[in-house]
C-alpha cells in the first residue's frame, strides 16, 4: 500500500502549480506558525493547512499528519508540564522525581506546551500536504541547475527507497509462502538479502546512467514547463499572508504570555489575522468549470513537461485534466 504522504498527481490547483508557488504558499503557513505563539493564530494556521490539504485531495495525508501531529503535541504538553515548573497556577504536585527534582504541574506550563505542540502539528500537516501534493521530480528539476549531482542523488534515493521497500515486502511474502511449518525468516537474513539486492541494483543503475551519458555535461534545458495559471494565486496568498502576519505582529497581534500567568490576547489585530490565515487555506479551491470544450481555442497544455516527459497527463488551459 502506498504511503499516505507519497505524491499523487491530481488535477487540483496545488498540484498543478509550480513547485515554487506551492512551497511559497505552504511555507507561508508554516512561517506564520513560527512567527506566532498565540494559540488562536496557531489554530488558524492549522485550519489553513488542513483545508489546503483537503482541497488538494490529500485527505489521507492530512488525516495521518493530524494524528501524528496531535500525538506529538500531546507529548510536548506532557514533557513541558513535567520539566517546566514555572508559572503561578499549580494544578498538581507530583512530589520528588529522580533527575527532575520537585515536579509541580502548572497551568502555564500546560498552555506553553500546547502552544509549542500546536506549532509542531501545523508544521507536520503542512509538510504532509507538501509531500502529497508537490511533485518531487519537479522540485528536483528546479534544484538541478543549483546542485546537479545532489539533485541526481536525491532523485535516485527517492526512486530506490520505495523499490527497496517493495523488495522487502516481496521477500517477506516469499518467506510466508513457504508454508506454516517453515521456520520464520529472521530480520538479519532478510536485511542481508535486501542489501545484496540493493547493491546489485545500484551497480545496474550506475551502468545505465553511464550508458545514457550522465557523466557528460548537462544537456541544455529543454521543454521548460510553462508557469501554471495558479502560480500567481499561491504567490499572492503567500505574500499577503506574510505581510499581514508581520504587520499584525507589529500591531501586537502576538499578545500571548504564558509565564508567570497565561494571558491570551484576543484583540482586533489577532482576530483579523486569525481569520485571514484561516481563509488562506482556501487558496487551492477550484473554480467550477463549465462542461464544454476543453478550451476556447482547443489548445492542450502538457501537465508535466513536453515530449520528454514520462507522464502523459494533459490538461487544458483551465487546469482540468483533458487526457492521461
Amino acid at each position: 500500500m502506498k504511503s499516505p504522504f507519497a505524491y499523487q498527481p491530481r488535477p487540483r490547483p496545488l498540484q498543478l502549480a509550480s513547485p515554487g508557488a506551492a512551497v511559497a504558499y505552504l511555507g507561508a503557513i508554516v512561517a506564520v506558525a513560527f512567527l506566532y505563539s498565540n494559540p488562536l493564530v496557531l489554530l488558524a494556521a492549522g485550519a489553513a493547512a488542513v483545508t489546503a490539504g483537503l482541497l488538494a485531495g490529500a485527505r489521507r495525508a492530512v488525516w495521518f499528519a493530524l494524528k501524528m501531529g496531535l500525538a506529538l503535541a500531546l507529548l510536548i504538553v506532557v514533557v513541558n508540564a513535567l520539566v517546566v515548573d514555572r508559572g503561578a497556577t499549580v494544578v498538581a504536585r507530583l512530589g520528588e522525581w529522580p533527575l527532575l527534582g520537585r515536579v509541580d504541574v502548572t497551568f502555564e506550563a500546560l498552555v506553553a506546551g500546547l502552544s509549542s505542540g500546536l506549532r509542531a502539528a501545523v508544521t507536520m500537516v503542512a509538510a504532509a500536504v507538501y509531500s502529497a501534493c508537490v511533485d518531487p521530480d519537479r522540485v528536483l528539476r528546479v534544484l538541478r541547475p543549483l546542485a546537479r549531482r545532489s539533485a541526481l542523488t536525491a532523485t535516485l534515493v527517492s526512486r530506490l527507497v520505495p523499490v527497496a521497500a517493495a523488495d522487502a515486502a516481496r521477500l517477506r511474502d516469499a518467506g510466508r509462502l513457504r508454508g506454516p511449518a517453515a521456520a520464520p525468516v529472521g530480520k538479519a537474513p532478510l536485511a542481508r538479502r535486501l542489501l545484496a539486492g540493493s547493491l546489485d541494483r545500484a551497480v545496474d543503475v550506475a551502468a545505465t546512467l553511464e550508458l545514457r551519458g550522465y557523466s557528460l555535461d548537462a544537456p541544455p534545458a529543454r521543454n521548460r514547463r510553462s508557469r501554471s495559471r495558479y502560480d500567481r494565486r499561491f504567490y499572492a496568498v503567500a505574500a499577503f499572508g506574510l505581510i499581514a502576519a508581520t504587520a499584525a505582529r507589529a500591531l501586537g497581534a502576538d499578545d500571548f504570555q504564558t509565564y508567570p500567568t497565561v494571558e491570551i490576547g484576543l484583540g482586533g489585530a489577532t482576530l483579523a489575522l486569525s481569520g485571514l490565515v484561516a481563509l488562506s487555506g482556501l487558496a487551492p479551491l477550484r473554480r467550477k468549470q463549465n462542461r464544454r470544450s476543453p478550451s476556447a481555442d482547443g489548445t492542450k497544455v502538457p501537465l508535466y513537461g513536453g515530449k520528454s516527459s514520462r507522464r502523459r497527463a494533459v490538461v487544458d488551459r483551465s487546469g482540468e485534466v483533458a487526457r492521461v
Partner: protein
Amino acid sequence: MAVVSALLCATLATAGCGLGPGADVGDVRLTVTREYGAVPVLDTAVEAKESDTVMRVLEGEADISTRYGGGFVHSIDGVAEGQRGGDPYDWFFYVDGVESQIGAAEYDVAGGERIWWDYRNWSATDHVPAVVGSWPAPFSDGIGGRRYPVVVECEGGEGACGEAREALEREGVKVASGEPEKALRILVGPWAQVRHDPAARAIEAGPAESGIFADFISASPREPSNSEHSRGLAKSFELVALDQGGEVAESLGPNAGLVAATSRYGGLPAWVVTGGTAAAVGEAAHAFDAEHLRDHYAVAIDRGKTVPLPLEER
C-alpha cells in the same frame, strides 16, 4: 480495589503529591524596593503554600512580567529592567539577606523566609552576595529554612562584641561558642584587626569583589612597627562611603562605623561590625537592630546617624 486505591492515595499524599498548590507552610515576608532599598514599593506578609517559589510569591502580590520562559523577572509593577541615565538597572532578589545562586522560579519557599526584591543600578557590580537589610535574618531562621550556628568573632571590639551578642539574643538567636564549621560569622572589631579576615578584606578590593559600597583608607602615613603593633597602636583607618557607581562619594572619617555583609566564593555570609576606631565599632554595634538595618544593603554610622550605603549619586 478500594484498599489499593486508598493505599495509593496515601502514598502519593505522603510523597507530597496532590492537586492544587498544597497546604500552608507559614508566612514569608515580601519586600520590594528600588534604589538599594531607598524607595519602598511593597512590604507585606504572604501565606506561603507547599508548592510556592520566590517567583510565585512575588507574582501573587505584584504585577510582574517575565522573560526567558518565566525564569527571569523583567518588570515589577511596570518598572522594567533596562538603561537609566546610561546605567544598567535590573531586579535582584535576596532570601534571608543572601543573594540566591538559583533563579526565583526555582527557589522553593519553606516558610519563614524574608524575600527582598530590589531594583538597582548594577554598573559597579551585579553581584552583591549578602545584605544586612533583612535583619534579623539570616541569624534568626537560617537561610532558606536551613539553620546554621551563629558565631560572634571578637577582633578587638570587646564592648561592641557584647552589644552585638545582646542584639542577637534579643532576636532569639543563640550565639554559639567556639569555632563551629559552616557558621554564620559576625566579625566585630576595628578595621585594622578585622581586615585580616579573608572575607572581610574583600571590602578593600571594592564592591565588585565584596558587594559592599564602602572602603577603608589608611589614616596614618605608614605601617606600624612591630612594637607599636604589640602596644595596640595599629594602623588607623577612615571609612569611605561609595556611590552606586562604586566611586568614592564621601569620607566619613575614622569615627564612623560600618555594618555590612559579604561572602567569599559563594560561602555563608560573614557580617562585619567595624570602624576605624574602637569608638566607631561601638557605634556600629549600637546600630545592630532592625531600626537601623532594615532594607539597606549596608550602613555606615556617622555621629549616631545611619547612612545607608551606597550613597546616592550626586
